[in-house]
């Protein structure tokens, strides 16, 4: 599976997290990032606008 992200863009993503990753750890994550992208693509196919999140909000304070 090929990644659609460049190493530079991936570095920027990692920098945003603030995680103290070594070069080796970054490479590990970059190698599996395409699989994460595939999962995201799986759930971001078009949905009807009225499809709301599957959460129940109970406004009372327990």
């Amino acid at each position, binding site marked *: 599976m090929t990644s659609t992200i460049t190493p530079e863009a991936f570095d920027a*993503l*990692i920098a*945003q*997290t*603030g*995680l*103290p*990753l070594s070069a080796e*750890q970054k490479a*590990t*994550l970059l190698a*599996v*990032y395409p*699989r*994460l992208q*595939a*999962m*995201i693509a*799986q*759930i*971001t196919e078009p*949905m009807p606008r009225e*499809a*709301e*999140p*599957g*959460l129940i909000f*109970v406004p009372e304070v*327990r």
Partner: protein
Amino acid sequence: MSEFITIADASKQIAAKQLSPVELAKDRLARAKKLDGTLHAFLLLTEDRALADASKAEARIMAGRPKGPLDGIPIAHKDIYNTAGIRTTGHSKLLEHNVPTKDAVTVTKLADAGTVMMGKLATHEFAMGGPSFDLPWPPARNPWNPEHFTSGSSSGTGAAVAAGLILGGTGSDTGGSIRGPAALCGIAGIKPTYGLCSRAGVLPLSFTMDHTGPMAWTVEDCAILLQVMAGYDPSDPASANRPTPNFTSELGLGVKGLRIGVVRHFFESDHPVSPATKQGIDHALDVLEHLGAEIRDVTLSPLVDYHAAGSIILTSEAYAVHEPWLKERFNDYGELFRDRIALGGLIRASDYVQALRRRRLLCLELTNAMAGLDILVSASQTGEAPKIKEVPKWGNLENPSLTMPFNLTGFPAMSVCSGFGVGGLPVCVQLIAKPFAETTLFRVGHAYETATNWRARRPALAGG
């Protein structure tokens, strides 16, 4: 004393004063000391506490004041359940010396029911990933063959119950962590409906996917444990405020007239299972049909749709839980946990929300599919336990999980042993019910278990 005994049988013998809780506790402690050097199921054996609990139970029984079916029954807790004054580590270096001041709500409930607390059980680090070999304690081993994986993350509970070190225990299930080890260790384990069992005082992984529940040798024993664990808890924001049914009330009613749907594409094409697992499921369906159930096939969205939404939500929420520690103590985590969770930092907020929207559509799909059904049947694991050294690091991304759909949707689901594979290790079937229909789940699981003889076989290592 019998090497193996179920909770139901022990309970009857204790109530009849034929079995001493103290002798039972001593016997299980001796078994644990003998076998746990191989199994690593326990992170901590609380011998003094067990003997004290057992003495109190025995005094109650002898005085004619038993607390109920769990009085004097030896159990243990997955080490993400807080135990007051007793180390609770999450199997992680980060909490290596953590001693909570308060029990988890379910721990208190089980203690109040008279159980004998034997100790704290191995898990995958913070209930995710595994097996890991870079943590302060080794991973649990499968009693059917210690070279093999238990699955996880409730790995210690699976191993300890299967080996007869305890009669039951607690687990947690965020993506399959009760049903996986139940399956690979050949026991029963139920992930109840989301909101049925309190999660208060249990180390969180993913707020909207985490479930607590029991694991035991039989379906009946799980029902007995769940009876105590379930119920509304105002300290858990997701707890459902509804009456707790009698979970054993339908055991023995059989399955005549019940309607069972089979999600074949999940385990035949979406994530194909081993021939032994397939054979076990087909045999289970034959048994249930012979007992009078109606069987028909059901088609849902592809398994990967459920898996993707569940994984995005789980990883995002787990990252949010662990982010402060990840930034400060990244290398104190084991490699498996930190690498898997770090991916959560790369998921955009909009992707998380889309996963939540997808979740609702899939919940509606499952609700509609079950409208004319009582139970769904699928696989829980793809086959027998693999060798522990051959479990892939990124297995969670390689193939869709067979258990994830029911964490995502919150429907109750249970693993039940359905035979043994070519390697002599257990295989299993997964049963699913409508929300809060655990009583039906137990009814069907118990009917299947008692119509087959799989419960008669125990691991040879443990004397079976």
